[in-house]
């Protein structure tokens, strides 16, 4: 028990507390404190994460990760749902940036086009038409904020513990994880003809899957049209 990772545990608990303070509970008290605690928790967690490459790579990654996490927290805790949607959009952009950082160029733009460009905009329509003024009562309270935050703490703690054990320098959980060399990487995922390779894989190995996805999209479209068209005046 001596090698108990104090700082990650502290960060997770602090994050959970901050989350509880920031969630809408019918009052605005404690939100500032919560935001401060969340910033501290994120800083602590970030200080424990390993560095990625040289300082430029490293700072780009941490900025993107910070944008993503901060917007995710804001998207869940803001009381005005329009602001929630906007923060969610920024989280999507942060994720797209992270995708780009690993070399998944096509996914980055696909996420932006599909999620931010189509899905979120339609939801934004509904939000704006539904709530033209003020904040509704049901946006100002949440179910069991404390229990929810505790659940989050447990889930994040469990996941990060497993992740930490997986890559621990000594006694790694999965020693058989093969390390790719950078030459191998450059030959495949990071190839200059990235999209061409991706498309080749998509319409070669995964052709059946993409057809199924297409059919699924069609079925969903028809289903949505049926649901929305039911109540005809």
């Amino acid at each position, binding site marked *: 028990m001596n090698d108990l990772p104090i700082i990650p545990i502290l960060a997770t608990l602090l994050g959970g507390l901050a989350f509880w303070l920031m969630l809408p509970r019918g009052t605005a008290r404690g939100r500032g404190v919560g935001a401060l605690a969340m910033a501290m928790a994120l800083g602590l967690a970030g200080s424990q994460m390993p560095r990625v490459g040289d300082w*430029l790579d490293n700072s780009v990654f941490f900025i993107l990760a910070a944008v993503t996490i901060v917007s995710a927290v804001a998207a869940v805790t803001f009381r005005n749902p*329009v*602001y929630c949607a*906007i923060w969610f*959009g920024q989280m999507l*952009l942060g994720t*797209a940036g992270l995708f780009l950082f690993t070399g998944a*160029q*096509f996914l*980055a*733009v*696909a996420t*932006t*086009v599909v999620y*931010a*460009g*189509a899905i979120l*905009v*339609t939801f*934004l*329509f509904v939000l*704006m038409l539904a709530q033209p003024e003020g904040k509704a009562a049901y946006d100002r309270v949440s179910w069991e904020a404390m229990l929810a935050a505790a659940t989050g703490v447990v889930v994040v703690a469990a996941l990060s513990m497993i992740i930490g054990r997986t890559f621990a320098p000594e006694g790694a959980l999965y020693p058989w994880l093969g390390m790719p060399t950078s030459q191998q990487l450059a030959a495949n995922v990071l190839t*200059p*003809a*990235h*999209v*061409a390779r991706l498309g080749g894989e998509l319409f070669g190995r995964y052709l059946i899957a993409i057809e199924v996805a297409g059919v699924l999209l069609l079925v969903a479209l028809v289903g949505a049209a049926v649901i929305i068209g039911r109540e005809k005046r």
Partner: protein
Amino acid sequence: MHLLLLLLEPLLKIAVVIGGLMTAAAYLVLVERWMAAWMQDRLGPNRVGIPLTKIRLFGLGQPIADGVKFLCKAEFTQEHVDKALFLLAPLIMFITAMAAFAVVPFGSVIPPDIFPASWGIKEPIRLMVAPGLDVGIIYMFALGSIAVYGVVLGGWASNNKYSFLGGLRSSAQLVSYELPLGLGIVGVLLASGSLRLDAIIGEQARTGVWNILTQPLGFLVFCVASFAEAARLPFDLPEAEQELVGGYHTEYLGIKLMMYLVAEFLHMVTAAFLLVILFLGGWHLWGLTGAGEVVTWPIALLRVIVLLAKVMGMILFFMLCRWSWPRFRYDQLMDIAWKVMIPLGLVNLIVVATCNEFGMPLARWMGVSAEWAMMAAGWFALLASWLVVSLLDPTAGGNRPRHLRPAEAIPADWEAQS
């Protein structure tokens, strides 16, 4: 030090592109005002020249005066707006409009041999800001889809009925027309085999056949959709002045309004660039600019000039269209997107795919080259589908406004007459 050198080239390119675009936008506004005036038998702006003198310079000082006016306006935020989003919306619009030019090639390459040997430049320099981005044109689509937020948030944050209606209309229009826009270019991408704009130009230059010749239907769909995406006049529903005051930017003023206006103008410039690059051969001109990437510097310069001349011609066409046709009604707008343009785009895609797959044997059988076969198929598809659309007339919906007339005025045999 190494890092700084690495960053120097992109930073230099970004500075040139942003400076050039801002100046171009300002002066294109002047050109648009001139065009508008001439088409209405007026003279247009011709007064502002050098300040404090009588020198007028045909009104070339007008953009600077306009800019100074915008910058000097009182910058206040209305009491009833949603402050944060009100500020954010024009920023989104402006930044996305600017960022779209990161993957646009402004010419071909600069050969390395015109620089002094001591600079150590071995590779030809590509005239685009982000030459390594492999997703090129989809990146522009992503930015276009983010620009919708600028519109819809601006309309909502203004807390004004006209703005909100304008914002909603506009975002519905932009989201709808992204589909034909995408369908229009799929054919080009299929023919070129790349998403990168410089590769698409290179392919057209290699074969010497511009995409508009082989895929006229794709050009039609893409052109109409890009008019709608840029919210230019036959489709300028978002800010239809006569109905919505100013649409989503009714409440804006000063610098924020300027951001919106410049962004809208840049959308038009982007659309013109895309039309030229995808369909009109980019920098390629038969017998003048050659093909391939190894060029001498006069040819490199010539390519830039040809590209920009084509873009300017396209922009003038945009401006000409503004006064040539009346605005569509909103349901007609949507009908055109969903009932005409998307089917036409699909037809184009099928024709191009078929030609790519079976064009070679067919051309050999017919005894012509593959390009000629594609061209024949493309134009036949255009004429046939246009005929079908005209016969079916899908935009004539059941909700056309009904004309009222006193009953006495109707002749007894009115049905026979009609």
